[in-house]
Every structure is written in structure tokens, then in C-alpha cells.
């Protein structure tokens, strides 16, 4: 392993290797710090459990989430139906477990699309600078001047209410945050020694951006994504609640609360359990994201 003073002498490759080694070492201490904070550790455990449930849902559920059982409508929670049944006799417990799937899928797709689009735009704006930067950043500002949920609702309504369209609509309003984040990072990295060195060594622009700048943008992007997962799940559930996302009888938490609302006074458990699931999932990822951000923030070094 190269020691830092050696790296100074080893030229751009060595300097960057040291930069990367440092990052790997930081990753280990970061994990330690996340786990050291009990709240973040709880978040991590809950998040892992949710992912496991989503993957293994068919093995875990006692009933099919869509099978109608007219004889057992709106039953209160009992040993056979731990969360009760809905207006068509479907088992709410099974539906809540299945509900992890659309929520985690939506978060993955939304943040995946938003971060890719945002990263590309941020890289171009930051690296090119000048007019291109000006134009892209004004476009970004335009999107940021909107409260995201309202714009997402407009877009979802325009595309037509469906789970898929709602994901696209949310991604449309989400990328500007990543564009701004990556641009800031690029502006900062542009003047790092190893970038200058790579340029002097004759590396092409493409190579500088992809091999030297982009890899050093991952940390802030990942921190931002981890902070956003909970919010993405919440936004998706909100759109489903007002009828613009997943459509009943799909086992999606927001859609379940929307239908359960009609039974709120006599069958309060119907809205209680899917809503609780949203709360727990969002909270788990928020705690984890918070812990990650705190662990990576410079405040720790004091």
C-alpha cells in the first residue's frame, strides 16, 4: 500500500490510488460510526429486514394478497388474520408484507433514474462551464422553484394514473437535486491536483471525467440517495393515496390506506397497518441515511 508521502512522488496514478485507499479506509470507519449510533443501527437493521421481506414475500405470506374471500370481509385482527381482512376478505397482513415490493421498487427506480440523469447533467454543466452550465443550471433552478409533490402530481395526472407513470413523474421532479450536487462536486474536483496531473499527462476530457472526476462523486451521491430513499417511498405512497399511483386492489400501502379510509370509523385497523408500514419503512431509511450523513460529515473530526 502506498503511503501518502510516496503518493506525492508517484504522479497522478499514485496520488489517486492513495485518494482511493483513503476512501476505502474511510468506508470501514464510516460503517463503524453508523453502527455506533443506536438510532442508525436500528435503521440499518430495519432496512435490511424490509429488503428481506420484499425478496421473500411469497414465502412469508399466509394468504395470497389478491384472493377474494367474500365470507370473511372486514374481520378484525385475529390469530388467523393478524392484521384483519379488507372489504373483499383479502388478508391485510399478507398485503402489507407484499407492499414492501412496490415501495422499494419505486424508491430504486425513482432514485436510479434521478441520480443518473442528474449526474450526467451535473457532470456536463460543471465540467463544460460557461453557457452550457448557465443554461442547464437555470433549467435546474426552474424545476427546484416548484414544490416537488405538486409538480409530481401534475406530471402523474398528465401521464395518467398508474404505478409506473407515478414513478416516472416523481423521477422527473427529482433529478435537479442530483444535478446541483454533482455540479458542485465537479467544480470542487476540477482543481484537484490529480485532475491537473491527468490533464498534463494528456488524458482526454472524456477520460478525465469518467475515470478521475466521476469516481470521486460517488460518496455525496450515495449519501444523498440514502437520505432520499425514505422520502421517495413517502412520495410514492402519497401519490397512490390520492389515486395517482398504484391502483386498488394492488397491494400498495398508499392505495390500501386510500380504500381503508372509507372504513375508518368501524374498521380502523384497515388504515392502521398499511400506514404503519409506510411509517416504519420511511423511518428506517431516514435513520440510516441520517447516520450515514452524520458519519461522513466533517463535524466528526472535531
Amino acid at each position, binding site marked *: 500500500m502506498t503511503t501518502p508521502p510516496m503518493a506525492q512522488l508517484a504522479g497522478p496514478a499514485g496520488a489517486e490510488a492513495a485518494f482511493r485507499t483513503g476512501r476505502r479506509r474511510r468506508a470501514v470507519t464510516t460503517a463503524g460510526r453508523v453502527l455506533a449510533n443506536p438510532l442508525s443501527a436500528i435503521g440499518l437493521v430495519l432496512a435490511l429486514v424490509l429488503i428481506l421481506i420484499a425478496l421473500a414475500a411469497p414465502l412469508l405470506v399466509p394468504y395470497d394478497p389478491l384472493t377474494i374471500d367474500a365470507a370473511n370481509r372486514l374481520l378484525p385482527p385475529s390469530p388467523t388474520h393478524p392484521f384483519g381482512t379488507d372489504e373483499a376478505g383479502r388478508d391485510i397482513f399478507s398485503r402489507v408484507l407484499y407492499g414492501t415490493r412496490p415501495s422499494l421498487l419505486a424508491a430504486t427506480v425513482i432514485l436510479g433514474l434521478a441520480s443518473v440523469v442528474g449526474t450526467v447533467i451535473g457532470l456536463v454543466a460543471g465540467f463544460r462551464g460557461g453557457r452550457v452550465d448557465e443554461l442547464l443550471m437555470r433549467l435546474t433552478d*426552474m424545476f427546484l422553484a416548484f414544490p416537488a409533490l*405538486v409538480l409530481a402530481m401534475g406530471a402523474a395526472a398528465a401521464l395518467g394514473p398508474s404505478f409506473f407513470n407515478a414513478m416516472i413523474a416523481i423521477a422527473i421532479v427529482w433529478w435537479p437535486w442530483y444535478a446541483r450536487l454533482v455540479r458542485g462536486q465537479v467544480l470542487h474536483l476540477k482543481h484537484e491536483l490529480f485532475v491537473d496531473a491527468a490533464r498534463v499527462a494528456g488524458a482526454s476530457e472524456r477520460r478525465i471525467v469518467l475515470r478521475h472526476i466521476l469516481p470521486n462523486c460517488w460518496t455525496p451521491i450515495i449519501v444523498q440517495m440514502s437520505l432520499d430513499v425514505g422520502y421517495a417511498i413517502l412520495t410514492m405512497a402519497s401519490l397512490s393515496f390520492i*389515486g395517482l399511483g398504484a391502483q386498488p386492489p394492488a397491494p400498495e400501502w398508499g392505495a390500501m390506506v386510500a380504500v381503508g379510509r372509507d372504513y375508518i370509523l368501524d374498521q380502523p385497523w384497515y388504515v392502521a397497518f398499511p400506514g404503519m408500514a409506510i411509517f416504519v419503512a420511511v*423511518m428506517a431509511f*431516514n435513520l440510516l441515511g441520517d447516520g450515514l450523513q452524520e458519519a461522513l460529515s466533517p463535524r466528526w473530526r472535531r
Partner: protein
Amino acid sequence: MLPYILRRLALLVVVLVGMSAITFALTHIVPGDPARLLAGPHARQEQVDALARLYGLDRPLPEQYWIYLTGLLRGDLGMSLTTRRPVLDDLLQYLPATAELAFAALALTVLLGIPLGVLAALRHGRATDHAVRFLAVAGVSLPAFWLGLGLQIIFFQQLSLLPIGGRLGSLDAPPARVTGAYLVDALLAADTATFAAAAGHLVLPAITLAAGSLAVVTRMMRASVLETLDADYVRTARAKGLSERVVLGRHVLKNALIPTITVLGLQAGTLLAGAVLVEAVFSWPGIGLYTVRAISNLDYAAVMGVTLLVSAIYVLANLLVDLAYVVLDPRIAEQGTMRT
């Protein structure tokens, strides 16, 4: 200062034109046919065409946008397909209800969030701090619509303490309209019974709407008090032998408020967006409920009117925030580093 404000207002116009283009583009890539929706499933094709002509839906898109944009300059936001009234009239009718709700939520946010954040920071690392931090994370994680439904179950069904929804009971007459905010109008009319009824109806929706912002503001205030407590000028103030009271009040709080105020400005947008969900839960007859209805009816003009209104309010709120900065921290104006 004045040229700065003017420049910002000019920018507002640019933002609004951009907004109108974005919303127009978004709302017009719809596969649905609003004229058909309006005419009903059994209407004959001629009737649908006549309606399309009446609302200009048969023109090419760029022309429709141009008509819309020039109309905007005259304050004409188009006709709502749902209410069949000018969108501007609708917005003016529904806005006071939402404003009343949003201001109540904002008041809760400020009055509880700032003291809680300060308290947590001063008890840094102790039980109070952990409890406040936990509440803050829980607050941003709660789905507003679910919190609202839960409060309805507890305070309406179980305790019979508060109404389930609406702005007034079915037997209460609304106060004479001056501002459109029932609390204010009832006060102006010196009508305590209506005031009490309106306040009772406002409690649950306002708490529901405030929860998320309250959490964000508490967290921000906690973080920025912690940061300020560490600043050199605070150490200097202490070293000078100033009392803790003076140090906290004059040095820490005033400076810690600056980032919190930015966050408050951003919450203006969050509150308006959150109002859509909260109004849907509590049948609160404001802009949010109007939006949900407009969206499900493919009511382009209404949806665009709302988004324009909301973004204008949002941009104005952020302008106010930037001006508040200058008042709190004159260095910003001197350095000329105000955000544009």
C-alpha cells in the same frame, strides 16, 4: 436594496413564464381527451367537437400556449372545466381556506420547532436531546394522510372532542366574508361562537400539516444552535464575562436563526404541497381539494393555475427569506453575496 428587490421580482416573472411552459407541456402530453370527458360518455361527436372549439382544445399546441400566455398577462387563467368558472375566481375563492390552514401550521412550526431545537441543543447528548431527535425523525417519516386519519380516529371517534373535517359544522353559518379566513372574519364580526367553531375545525388539520415542517425546523434549529455555540464570537462573549442569558439571546439565537429561516422559506412550498393531502383527508375546501378534483377531471387550466399560483407563492416566500437574511446579518448585504 431596492434594485435587488426589483431584480428579484423581474426574475419571478421569468420563473413564472418558465413554469407555465413546463406545466403546459406536462399537462398537454396527456393521452386523454378532456372535451370527451367534459361532454360525457354518451355525447355525440358533434357535441364533443363543439366543446373542444369552445375551450380552444382543437387548436395546435403552440397556439394554445400562446393564447394561454397572453391571457395570463391580462390575469386570465382560462376556464375551469370542472367548475365552469374562470380559474382565477376559483383560486381566489379557495385560497383563503388553504392560507388559513397553512398559516396555522406555520405558526405551530415556529412556536414549537424553534424552542424544541434550542432545548435539544442546550441538552446536547442527554435524554431530552435524544427524545427530540427521535421525534424529529418520526415527524418527517409520518405520512401526513395517515397521521390525519389517526387523529380523526382518536379525537373524533374515541374522544368526541374535535370535528372530523370541514371548516365549520353543518349548522354553523360562515362569517361575513372579508378576508375569507374564517378565524379573521369571525373576529372582525366579533362572533365568538363562530370563531370557536372555526378554531375547533382547524386544530387537527393544522397539526397534521405542521408535523413534517415542525420536524425539519426542530432539526435545523438544533444543528445550527450547536454550530453557533462553538463559534469564536460566542467564546469571546463568554470570555468577556457576559451572562449566559445575554450570550444565548444576543449571540447564539440570533445567528442560529439564519439557517432556520431559510428552511422556513422552503417549508412554504412543503406546506402548500402537503395541504393537498391534508385537505383531502379533512375535506378542507381549499386549493388542495380543488387540485385533486381538477387532476382527476383532466382540468388543464385549473391544474396549471394552481401550479403557477403555488410556484409564485414559493418564489415570493424565498424572496422574503433572503430579505430577512439581510436584516439578521448585515454582512450579507455588504459582501453583495445575496443569492439570486
